[in-house]
Structure formats: structure tokens, C-alpha cells
């Protein structure tokens, strides 16, 4: 009993522990619980919406001859189709049969889309969209069925000519119908440029704009934005004459969304729409920047909103700074640099990559812009860090910023600040990597050459020893074996011009050791003398 109370007895067992069945089980349990919750929610959503639409004619089982009081299954689809297509069927039965189809399609897994397409009911469904403009319920249910079909198959829907009627329904009297038709069109447009253009032929934007102006519910607004976003997406972009009128309305909607509650999903769609709309020539960018959204976007970044929103925001700002000098200046003076550190530290590699891409647009801008960027020490440090320690795609973009700076007109004033944040190291480390892009390797070598050249002309000892500390000479030495002649030539040139006479000091400390200075933080109170004098406590 003496040792039973000891904390040590419970200590063993974790040493070099390997994976056990409990670890696996925990992970599987998460999956099970996630799926269970999803399916429960789905089941309830169906039940609740089912009731919602039936209140008027409170009678589910009116197709008693088809279903005999039970719930419809996939096997009933052909019969349901007969009811919908049949000239004898009553309006009530048609509605009920359509609802049954919709419920069958609402399953998240394996919805029976093909069964429905195969039974030839699609033309009738499209017909029902316009057959009786007063029959809101039938139109709504039909649009819902088409929405779900469109998640897996848009070709046949478009072939049946659904685009025109659906576009007209965007301004239907019933908000439910409006919402459902926009949802459906959004799904179709998301399938690709061809599907998108088929819808654009029917001029949906004026209709969509009216819904933006007066959205009857938040959910309707969300689907409206989803539709707009998908209609703007894809290259070539839709003609500006179509999209220009909607830009201001989108900016106003963004204000509304930011003002009310935080609806990130709607906001996300809206931002993506802007990212597509801001892609293009100076005039296109001007039109979008005319709304002043860059101010709001920068505020959004500073507020650290969820990272899903960051991706489109960075894309939009990147498009802006890729415009002319004036446009870039506007974004910079709106406070862009203040929020870059947040973005470069994002947990999303995509956001970090896009941010670097944005910075490369600035680096290749006017000399003033490049030198403004250079003065941002925190950004430059973080950029060098991204260029050295990150996923390869991010590193490539970050390196591109550095080489762009060294190619700019102000390259001579770039060298010293860049060296101060370890930029040379990042260039060298990049050469160690698996870069397949010969052009970029050349840029990097040229950048190194620019630095060495500057060192030779402006300092007594030059910068060759720094290059060597980073292991660069050995690497460039190796590049003499490169299959590309130009790279080979550049390597030879660098070695001959800058490294030939230099006596390399083998005793330089490895870099990792020399940066312990970076760790002088975090200790609240130094309580022991560092030379080993017995400590005395003063708490």
C-alpha cells in the first residue's frame, strides 16, 4: 500500500508511446458522430419543411392509389413521373408527386438523380415552371427538384430550355419561388462557363439586382449572392456591360451584411463575386474600386474575421494592386501594409500564397511603391521566413517578391535592408529546393549576383562571406553541372567574379547556432545568475 498513492506509479506507459486501438477508435468515433448528426439534421430539416408547405392543403396521402399510405421510395419514381406527366392527374396529385421527388432528392448521399432523369419527367418539370404562374407551390417544388438535379447534372436541364423560365422566376411574386430559382441557377452556373453563358443569354442580372435591392429574407439574399457569384465566375469574364450595373448594389449589400449580423456564408459568396468582378484591365478595376470597398476589406482583415473570408479578400486586393500605379497607391494608403503580417501568419497556406502574390504585384509597381514595401521591416522579415520555411507553393511566390525587388529600378537601395532580414539566406535555401522552373532559378541567381555586385562596389569585404555562410557557394558550385546553359553560365560568372579570389573561411559557425539571439524573450524574471552562482529565491 505504500506506493499506491505515489504519482509515479501512473507515470509509465507514455514513454515513446505508439498508436493504440483507443487512438483509432477515438478518431472513428468522431466520424460516426459527425455523420450521425448530419443525418439527424437532414431528417429533421425534411420533416420540418414538409410540414411547411403542406399547411394550406393539409393532406399528404392524396395520391393514395400510388403510395397507399406509405412513404415514397426510389422504386416509386416511375409512377410518380406518370402522375406528373399524366394529363388526367389533378393539380393536387401533381404537386404531391413533385414533393415526393423532391424529398427523395434531398438525401445527402446518393440522391437518385439518374433514376429521375431516366424516367423522362424532366421536360414536364420544366413545363410546370411556367404552366400556371398562380400555382406557387407547384413552381416552388419543381424548382426545388431542379435545384437538386442540378447538383449532379446541368446539361439535360439546360437542353430542356429551363434557363429562360428560371431567369423569369427570379422576379416572381412569391419570395420562396424567387429564392429557389436563384438557388437553382446558381447550381447550374457553377457547372462551368458553357452552362453559365447559357444563363447569361437570358440577362439575369437586372432581375438579380432587384432582389439585392429588396431581399425579403436573409436566406434569399444568400442564394441571390451565390447565384451572382457563380455567374461572374470563370474565364472569359462575362461582358462588363452586363455586370457593371450590379457592382454598386453589391457594395451596398456588403454594408448591409456587415451592419446586421455576421452572416459569413453570404459575405463569402459576395466577396468571391467581387474577386471575379475585379479581375481585368484598369477600367474594370477602377469601376470596382470606385465603390471604396478596399477600405472595408482592410478593416475586415484587421478584425481577424474567419479565414474563409480571407481568401477572397486577398484575391480582390491582389487584383487591385495589380492595376496601375494610382490604383496600387490607393490600396496602400488605405492601410494595406498594416494587415499584411496577419495574412502572412494565416493558418491557410492559400492565403499566405495569395498574399505573397499580392506583394509581388507591389514589388513590380512604381519605385516609390517598392521602396515603401521595403520599409516594412515586419513584413519583410515574415516574407523572408515564408520564402524559407513554408509549403513550396508559398515559398515560390515569396521568392518571387524578393527577386522582383532586386530587379526593380531601386535595386541598389534594396540590398542592405534585404540582407538585414536574412533575404540572402532565403535565396540560397531556395536553390536547395526542388525548383523545376528554370526562369525562377535564373531570377534567383541574378538576384544573388545583384547583391554580390553591390557588396563588391560599396563595401570593403563584399558579401561573398555571407553567401558562403548560408552554404551558397557550394550550391552555386553545384549549379555548374546544371543542364541549362544559361544557368551554368550564370553560376560560372558568379563564382569567377565574386568568389575566385576570396579565401573561404571554413570555421564560420553554422547559422543555426548564431541565431540564439532570437530567443531572448519570454522569461518573466531571471532568477538564477547565469554563471552558476547558487540561486537565491525572491518570489
Amino acid at each position: 500500500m505504500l506506493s499506491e498513492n505515489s504519482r509515479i506509479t501512473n507515470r509509465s506507459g507514455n514513454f515513446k508511446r505508439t498508436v493504440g486501438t483507443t487512438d483509432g477508435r477515438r478518431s472513428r468515433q468522431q466520424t460516426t458522430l459527425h455523420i450521425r448528426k448530419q443525418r439527424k439534421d437532414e431528417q429533421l430539416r425534411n420533416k420540418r419543411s414538409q410540414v411547411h408547405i403542406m399547411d394550406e392543403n393539409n393532406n399528404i396521402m392524396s395520391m393514395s392509389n400510388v403510395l397507399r399510405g406509405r412513404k415514397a421510395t426510389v422504386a416509386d419514381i416511375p409512377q410518380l413521373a406518370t402522375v406528373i406527366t399524366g394529363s388526367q392527374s389533378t393539380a393536387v396529385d401533381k404537386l404531391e408527386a413533385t414533393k415526393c421527388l423532391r424529398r427523395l432528392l434531398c438525401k445527402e448521399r446518393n440522391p437518385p438523380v439518374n433514376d429521375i432523369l431516366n424516367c423522362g419527367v424532366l421536360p414536364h418539370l420544366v413545363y410546370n415552371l411556367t404552366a400556371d404562374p398562380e400555382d406557387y407551390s407547384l413552381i416552388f417544388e419543381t424548382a426545388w427538384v431542379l435545384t437538386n438535379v442540378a447538383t449532379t447534372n446541368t446539361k439535360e436541364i439546360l437542353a430542356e430550355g429551363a434557363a429562360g423560365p428560371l431567369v423569369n422566376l427570379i422576379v416572381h411574386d412569391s419570395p420562396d419561388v424567387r429564392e429557389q430559382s436563384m438557388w437553382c441557377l446558381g447550381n447550374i452556373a457553377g457547372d462551368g462557363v458553357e452552362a453559365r453563358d447559357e444563363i447569361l443569354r437570358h440577362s439575369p442580372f437586372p432581375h438579380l439586382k432587384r432582389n439585392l435591392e429588396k431581399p425579403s429574407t436573409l436566406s434569399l439574399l444568400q442564394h441571390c449572392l451565390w447565384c451572382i457569384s457563380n455567374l461572374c465566375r470563370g474565364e472569359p469574364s462575362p461582358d462588363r456591360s452586363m455586370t457593371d450595373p450590379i457592382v454598386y448594389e453589391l457594395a451596398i449589400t456588403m454594408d448591409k451584411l456587415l451592419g446586421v449580423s455576421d452572416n459569413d456564408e453570404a459575405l463569402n459568396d459576395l466577396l468571391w463575386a467581387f474577386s471575379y468582378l475585379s479581375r481585368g484591365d484598369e477600367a474594370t478595376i477602377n469601376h470596382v474600386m470606385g465603390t471604396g470597398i478596399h477600405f472595408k476589406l482592410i478593416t475586415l482583415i484587421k478584425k481577424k474575421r474567419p479565414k474563409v473570408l480571407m481568401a477572397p479578400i486577398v484575391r480582390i486586393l491582389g487584383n487591385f494592386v495589380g492595376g496601375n500605379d494610382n490604383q496600387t497607391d490607393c490600396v496602400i494608403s488605405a492601410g494595406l501594409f498594416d494587415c499584411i503580417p496577419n495574412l502572412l501568419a494565416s493558418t491557410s497556406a492559400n492565403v499566405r500564397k495569395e498574399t505573397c502574390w499580392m506583394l509581388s504585384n507591389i514589388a513590380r509597381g512604381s519605385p516609390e511603391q517598392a521602396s515603401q514595401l521595403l520599409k516594412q521591416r515586419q513584413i519583410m522579415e515574415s516574407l523572408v521566413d515564408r520564402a524559407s520555411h513554408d509549403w513550396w507553393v508559398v515559398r515560390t511566390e515569396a521568392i518571387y517578391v524578393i527577386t522582383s525587388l532586386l530587379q526593380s529600378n531601386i535595386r541598389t537601395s534594396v540590398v542592405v535592408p534585404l540582407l538585414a532580414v536574412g533575404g540572402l539566406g532565403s535565396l540560397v535555401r531556395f536553390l536547395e529546393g526542388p525548383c523545376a522552373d528554370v526562369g525562377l532559378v535564373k531570377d534567383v541567381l541574378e538576384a544573388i549576383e545583384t547583391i554580390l555586385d553591390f557588396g563588391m562596389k560599396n563595401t570593403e569585404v563584399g558579401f561573398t562571406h555571407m553567401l558562403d555562410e548560408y552554404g551558397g557557394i557550394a550550391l552555386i558550385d553545384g549549379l555548374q553541372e546544371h543542364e541549362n546553359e544559361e544557368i551554368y553560365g550564370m553560376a560560372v560568372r558568379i563564382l569567377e567574379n565574386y568568389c575566385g579570389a576570396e579565401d573561404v573561411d571554413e570555421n564560420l559557425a553554422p547559422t543555426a547556432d548564431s541565431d540564439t539571439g532570437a530567443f531572448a524573450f519570454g522569461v518573466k524574471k531571471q532568477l538564477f545568475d547565469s554563471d552558476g552562482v547558487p540561486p537565491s529565491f525572491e518570489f
Partner: protein
Amino acid sequence: MAAPYDTQLEQLLLSAAAGDKNAEQQFNLAQEQNFLGSLQSLVNIFVADGANPMARQLGGLMIKNSFFAKSEEVAKINQKRWEQLDAAARDSIKNPLLQALRNPERVVSHTAAQAAAEIAAIELPYEEWPAFLPSLLENVRDPKYPDSVKAASLECLGYSCDRIATLDKVVDEKTTDGMLNVIIDGISANRPNQVRLAAAAALRNSLGFAEKNMEKPEECTAIMNAIMEATRSQDPQVRMMAYEAIVQVAVLYYGKLQEFMTNLYQLTTTTIQSDTEDNVVKSAIEFWTSLCEVEQDLIDEAQDLQARGLQPETTCMQYVAAATTHLVPILVTTLTKQEENADEDEFTVHMAGQLCLTNIAQTVEDVIVPVLVPFIQQNIQSPEWRLRDAAIMAFISELEGPSQATIGPYVQQSVPILLPLLNDENEIVRDSAAHCISRICLLHVQYIPGELFPAVMQALDAKIKEGSPKVASQAASAIFNLAQAFRSTEEQETNILSQYMQGLLTSLLSSADRPDGDESNLRVACMEAISELISVAAQDVRPMLSGALPEFLSRFEQTFNMSVLSPEEKNRRDQIQGLLSAVIQSLYRQLDKPTVAPHTDRAMYCLMQVLSNKSSNIQEECFSAISAIADVIEADFATYMDQLIPLLLAGLKNFSAYQVCIVAVGTVGDISRNIEGRIQPYCDSIMAVLIECLKDQSIHRSVKPPVLSCFGDIAMAIGGAFQPYLQLSMMMLMQAGSTKVENVDDDIIDYLNMLRESVLEAYVGIIQGLRDGNVLQEFGQYVGPVLHFLSDIAQDPHRDDYVLSKAVGLLGDIAMTMTPILPQLKTELNQPFAAEIVREAISSADQNTVETAQWASQILNQAINSS
């Protein structure tokens, strides 16, 4: 004074001692019938000098076991019985025991100590044994008693304290004073070692009651000085126990450490550096390990309180951070004391040191990095294997705690160095290197340089194939951890793992088959890595996975032919079947219905075969796999119900292994959702077992919420056919919903919220089900109480978001479905509580809750305003 003793009992005890189960049962039965009598006969034998010594000792132990039995229930019943005896009857047992404590025979006094401690633990909290402490004090102080009696008396005290704490009781100040007097007397330096040891142990156990004494500076100092003095004893056991008492002080009285910290630092570091006894060194290290845990808790608590605008009661003094620069280098030296032939469960100094460093890193975070880095860099490529290994272990210890920005760059640099160490000439080094990569995959996968990723994968694959069981098991764990990093709730078309999938699965499977698969957890690690890889596989791997399904099923079928003659063989078979069930589950979560359809008969056959064979640990996996199958094949699952139902019921009845019970309840819900009305023929028996679960008092409470929400799943599946169960289930639900607790702590609040959430889920399911069956009017009589329940929830300050979300949904359901039948509900729904629930839910942070609330708000308005 030799009392006559029962020779029959003597024989019985001897038979029981010889392993005769029958004798033991016979005794238990006698005790059941006559509690006091049986104790008296035992005590009589115990104190009878003439009786067989073995029977005497056993008699004493039986008294102890009467209150400290294998089954907690029996012990509790006997404690109650004891409390109901009158004072004279209790004295007839207690007095002889106190007497026996003074017996010069070590065996007798030692046994008496254990038996008396059990009774003291029951009586001291009620001040029912005033003679106890004075008698012990006399034993310790009076020179006429031999050291063995003094030691036994102190042991008795130590046991009593331990038992009082386990029984969750406290003793008053006076009693504690008495105890500490005895103990401090016993621990002093002039006492012989056996007495000091017993006193130190008693002190460790009694510290929990010494709060008042520790508050008084002079007593606190006296106690601390006595323990610190004892760490310098000649006897290693005394030194170890003294450190254990110090650890206890650090955990219980952190706020009092300040004055003693300089001394404690010196004592522990001197011991760690120079004590020759491993057990003492480990206890000294444990002081710092425990101190780290205390400080971590304090830091977490302070952050938590700060977020709520409150001040913590105890502030973290950052002793560990202050000591880091000096303590860490000392601990690092323990890392070079690897034991090449240590048992797997043995806790060595090397392990204690590593654990302590790990804890320090988690406590001081970035501060440890500059202290450890020089050691790691100097030694990770040392020609001496102990140093190489120590460097790796030091690095592992700082992987968790420091910020990503600080440790990330080192991780990045380490990978190219660790890869060759996987092929080190020394196995311990290889093992550590593989473990290090595994930890990196778990904690810092993004710092594995992208360009080295293929090399890492290749190296791990090679180790899985040809490493020793230890190293291969680490490599498989690395793959498991790596796979976890790819978990995503969204479908992925492809991911980086896709190209390695085929190769890894092949290597892992062939290593799981290795004849040495039992060693070092190799088989488990390989198979779990396979399951995890399957779970995170992207779409482009599915064709390959569909080919794997029949292959794994064949393996599963072969397990039924395995030889299971010895327990080891049976364990191995069970383990393999559990692992294969997990793989099947993961595959069914990935594949679609047309792909699995031709194989499902085989899969179900295997799983049902395993279920019909009892081994709780695999049953969970089987039921989970069955849930996965039902979710894919949906309505077609009904064909298996006839065969499955007895096994499912057995799982639901498995009250003792409550985890199995919970998983089985979940499976019932999943099946119901998938086969809907076709579960109806089985509902009588299922409902009966579920009700039994709810009624059972001894069942683990966490079973109850899932059972309640399962009512809702069943009702939704069978609709109108739920009617026969309506009354009973509503009674249960209303009772569960009205559960109230006086003293709320966080655990209870969590539990009550879970309970309420499940009650709400059940109500929703039942209403929807009855509605589908057109018999909703049956629910009419319950609407009042249900609305009352909702209004309770509206006022509950501890209500969590899940409860709120379910509550607002239920409100909407009632408004929508019940108001057409019961128009008077309009007034009842037009109450502040309903508006309150909707308002709270609409401003929730959870999007789903907001949507449900918006829907419910609309419905409520319609219902209330319709004429």
C-alpha cells in the same frame, strides 16, 4: 484473556487461503446473514495466540476486506451496516484491534493496522473513535513499545488517511492535529528507519487534511522541515517517501512553497545528480514533473478567469520557468542513462527525466528552447550512441509547448538529420528517431519541408517493412499521425497521400502479418494506420479501396479458423478481429452502395459471428462497423435484422461494460433512421431493454442520455406504431427532464445539459413520428408539461448552446404541428419564455441554430397570430 475462538472458522479460513472458492463463498454467506457475529469470530481468531498463524493473519485481513472488498457495492453495504451497530458492539471489534496493534509480532501488528484503519476511516469523520489517536500516540511515544509497534501504528494512521480520502470524507481540525503530532514525532531524525518510513508515508497520506495546519506559518515550517530533513536519511526508502510527501505538498499547497523553494531546488537537484538509488532520483524528478502540472493548471485557470474578467485565487509563481536554465541541463544528463534491457512497463530514471522535460516544455513554452538547443545540436550526430539518443529525446520533449514560430524552424532543420538516424547502428537510436518523426507528424506536420516529404514517406515505408518491431511500430504510428492531419469534413478529389496509398497499405498489411506482430504493439499500430489512411483517402483512391474490401473480408473470415487454445492465442484472435472490424468500418464510410452491395452479406456475417462471442472490447468496434454498414445500404439493412436482433439486445444489456452499451444504443438509432418502419417488429424487445437501462441505478450515468434520444429515433422511424410505448417513455422523459441537482459543479452541469438535450431530441422525434402516423392528438396531454420544461430551460443560467438549439426547434415543432389540433396552445406559446428562447437562439454563434430559430420564429408568429 485468551477468548475461545471458532475452530470451524479457522478451518474455513485455511481452506480459503489454499484457494478454495467454496470456502470463501461460505464465509461471505455467513457474513451476509450475521454481520456482527462474523466480525466477532474473525477478531477472536485474529487475537488468539493459540490459533494457526496463517488463519490469524487471514482473519485480520478478512476484517479489512469486509470494508474494502473487490466490489465497491459490497464494501458500501458493509460500511452502512457498521454505522448501524451500537457502540458496545463496535467496541467489541475495535478494542481487540487496538490491542493487537501493540503485539510485538510484526505480522500481527501490521495486519491489525490494516484492519483498524478501515474502521477508523469510517468512524473518524464522525468523531466516533476518541480512543484511536491517543492510543496510537502512546504507541509511538512510549519507549516501552518496540519499533515494530511504532511503525505499525504509523502505518495504521497512513492507511486511515488514505481511506478517508478515497471515501471522500474529511476529519476535523482536532483530529488532524492529533494525527500530525503522532506523525511529526515519528518522522524525526532520531527515529529508526522503519518508523520514519511509516511516518513519512502517513504524512503523505494525511496532508490532504492538513489545510488549517499549513495555514499556520510555524506548523507549516515544522512540517516542511521534518520532511526535508527526511530526504537526507541514510535509508533510500525513507528518502523516497520524503520526496513523495514533498510532491504532495507541491500539489496541495502550491501557495506555501515560496519560503522553501530555494531549499527544495537544492535538495532535488543534488539528489538527481548524485543519489545512487534510482527510486529516490525518480521521486525527486517527480517533484518538478508535478510542479509543472500544477503550474500549467494555474496558467490555464488564470487565462480562463481573465477571459471572464475575474482574478485567480492562486497566482502562478513561475517557479519552473525560473529554474529552467539550471534544472534542464541537470535533467538532460538523465537522458543519457538509457537502459538497454529495461522491461516495457518499468519506469526508469531515463523515462522520468524525459517526462519531466516534456512537462517543463509545456509549462514554460518558448523558454526551454534556447536551453535545450545547444545540447541537441552538439550531440545529435555524436559518435557516442547514448548522446545521439539523448539529443533526439531532448528534442522530442520540446516539440509540444513552445510556439510553432519558435520550434518550427528547428523541426524543419531536424528532418534531414533525423532521416539518416532511422538507419542508425543502434536500435534505441532508431526507435527514438522514428518516434521523433511520429511526434513531428502529429504536432508539426507543416514544418516537414515539402521537398523532403517524398523522402520521409519512403523512409517510413522502409521502416515499416524491415524495421525491428519497435521501430516499425513507431513508423506505422507516424503514418497514423500524418493521416490525421489530412482529416477533412469536405470531400477531397485528391490529396498528397493518394500517390503513396497503395504502397503504404501493402507495407502496413504485410507488417501486420509479421510473426513478431505481437511485439511492441506492431500489429495494432499497422492496422490502425491502415484504418486511418482509409478514412482520409481522397476520391481518387476509392477504386483501389473497393478492391481492398473483399480482400479484408477474406482475412476476417480466416480469423474464425485461427487456433485459440491458449489465452494468448485467444487475445491475439480477438485483437485481430477488432482491428479488422475497424478497417471494415472505415471502408464502409468511404464506399458507396453499389460498390459494397455484393460484399455486405460477408461483412455482416463476420461481425455477427464476433458479436456472438463475448469480448467487450471488440463489441464496440463491431457495433460501430454495423452502424457504418447501415448508413451505406440504408433500407436494405432490414434483411439482417432477424439475425442481428439478439446480438444487439445483448449489447444493450451489457450494463457492466457501459461503453458497449452506449455504442449499441447509437447503432439502434442509426439502424432506425435507415430502415425506418421495418424496425417496428423488433421494437417491443428493444424498448424493453432501453427502459431497463434507464431504471438501472448502477449503470454508468453517461448511458442514459443516448438512450433517451434513441426514443426519438425510434419514434421517427415507426411513426404511429410508437403509440404503445408513448406513455412509458414520456414518463421517463419527464422524469429525466426534471432532474435537479443542488450542488452544481462543471461535470454535473455538463451532464444535465446532455440529459436535457437528449430529452428534447426525444420529444422532437416523438412529435414528428406521431404526426407522420396521424395520431398526434395522443401527445395532447403531454404538451403542458413539455412547455413547462421549455420554460425551465429558458431560465436555466447553465444552459448550453446545444440545448438551446434543440429547444427552439421543439418550440417550432409544437407551434407547427400541435396548434391546429389544440387552438388553446396559441396563448400558451405567446409567453415570454418562448420569445426568450427564440431571441437567444437567433443571436447564437452557430449558423444551424440561427436557421432553426429563424424558422421557429416565423412558425410561432404564424401560429400565434392565425385566427
